[in-house]
């Protein structure tokens, strides 16, 4: 069910995790050369944040306050910039047709998924590390005091979203106009994440204890676990010819 990779022996010097980390390292090195993915994501995210600020207007921004405003603005900009970034994750594989080469490597196909997941997480994490302080400055909330809670909440929800996104970008990479499909495929299934992210981030920004949203955090953790398990199982099936 995992795509027939279990019969392959690990390469010399490589284990399951090692293989995954090597793929992640390769992708990150590619990314760091020209930083195209990260910069396009960052530009889109900043544009969305600014567009929100201008559309709402100063009186509304003042009246809403950061606890109500920032969760929505932050997660919408993260969502859509991550979507555009995830598209690029598999685009290079398709352009240079290296996916076949990857599959032929003597590692379990789900290790490819893990490697892609790691590299996507690093890129999206960098984006968030830039975006969070930016919203703190622009909308006036205290990042320093809220940091542990906000970091946990953002990490949990990003993990789920990127896990789902890596699987789906593998799915749509072989379709015509797959990029257009990625958003419409991902967003309905990410709804629990989006709802939970909004609630949990609001609580974290307001410096309230996270136990208030422990149910939603639990739901997100369950969602993450379910998505990771399903992706690991199904990824091999997807990439095998």
């Amino acid at each position: 069910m995992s795509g027939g990779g279990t019969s392959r022996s690990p390469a010399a010097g490589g284990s399951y995790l090692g293989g995954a980390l090597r793929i992640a390292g390769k992708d990150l090195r590619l990314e760091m050369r020209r930083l195209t993915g990260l910069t396009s994501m960052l530009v889109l995210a900043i544009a969305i944040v600014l567009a929100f600020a201008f559309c709402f207007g100063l009186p509304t921004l003042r009246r809403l306050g950061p606890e109500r405003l920032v969760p929505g603005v932050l997660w919408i900009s993260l969502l859509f910039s991550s979507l555009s970034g995830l598209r690029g994750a598999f685009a290079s594989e398709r352009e240079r047709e290296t996916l076949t080469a990857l599959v032929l490597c003597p590692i379990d196909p789900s290790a490819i998924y893990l490697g892609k997941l790691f590299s996507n997480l690093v890129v999206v994490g960098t984006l968030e590390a830039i975006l969070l302080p930016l919203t703190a400055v622009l909308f006036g909330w205290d990042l320093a005091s809220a940091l542990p809670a906000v970091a946990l909440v953002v990490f949990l929800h990003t993990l789920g979203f990127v896990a789902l996104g890596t699987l789906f970008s593998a799915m749509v990479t072989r379709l015509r106009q797959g990029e257009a499909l990625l958003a419409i495929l991902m967003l309905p299934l990410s709804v629990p994440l989006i709802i939970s992210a909004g609630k949990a981030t609001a609580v974290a920004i307001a410096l309230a204890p996270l136990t208030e949203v422990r149910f939603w955090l639990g739901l997100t953790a369950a969602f993450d676990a379910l998505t990771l398990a399903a992706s690991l199982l199904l990824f091999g099936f997807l990439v095998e010819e």
Partner: protein
Amino acid sequence: MVMRDESLTAMTRGSVGAKGANHASGASRAGAAASALLAALAAVLMFGAIWMVFGGYVPTTKRQAQRVEVGSTVRLKDVESGEVLTLTLLPSGETPRTASEISAGSVLGQALLGKERTTRDAATDRAVPTIVEGEMDGRARRFRFDPDAPQMPYDKKIEALDMPQRIFYFHVPSAIITFLAVFLVGGASLVYILTRSRFWDRVARSGAELGILFCSIVLLTGPIWAKPEWGHYWTWEWRLNFTAILWLIYLGYNLVRAYASSAEEASLVSAVLGLLAVPLVPLVYVAAELWEGSHPKPTLGRAGAQHDPLVSNGFLFCFLTFFILFSALLVLRTRLLGLEEELERLKRRPARAERGPAPESAR
């Protein structure tokens, strides 16, 4: 042009001729007959359902709440003495244990059964409490349904609601069928992943096409009912959110099928999507239900318990109708997909040598 037609005809005749004769007989003909029968049954049932609902053979739920039936609690005010009684109507076999229970078989019970709590006063066109004449404690008494209890105005609003409310006889079964389709698509996708059988891939694809059809019916009929009843077309209530998200998931599935460049890729990707949707859909359901918080919820379910067998049977009949309709469409669509695949396969077969070189135009 002529050559193309000839060679195409020759090709199909040649291939269908010997081996293909089997396709047109036996199992295929039985399958065609069965699906035609199923479609005819679905059409008859649907006609019956429309006639039943719009011809007024089923009571609409709004009227239901007005009418006294077994299990209802009524507040009666004695016309002469002004005494207010609260009584519950028990089934005729049971003996009342307290003073506030009466049996449906008693004189008063019989008088109350089937009465509407308010009657339309022709002069003022308003609701007036109905007067009931019955017997209690051995003497004849006249009661009026308590005028101080909240009454539903019997006015044009209720009459106007009767028509849109009938949509529920189609709206609720469609919703149930949509959920059925989710599990069908998930199951068929799983079987396809395990066995790579083209048949199950076709079943999953048909199921998804029907799923989006019935989901669209749900999303279109719902607001038609909601606007006269609640005054708005849409609200962010969890049932509506969940149905909208389901619609988007099905839309994505069908778009994947449309955008795939080869049948194999389409089946692969769609099967993963169909399978993934099944565990995630309950999660979306849970999240959407909990999201709305403490906002008052309009319930889309039936108002209270249905004592009237006419309403329950009406719903049951409509659900059966929609189930047969879904099955008929599923069978027809799956067969159609199978025939299309067969046709593609026949078209792609190389022409045989004795018919001469297959011209390039015969494609």
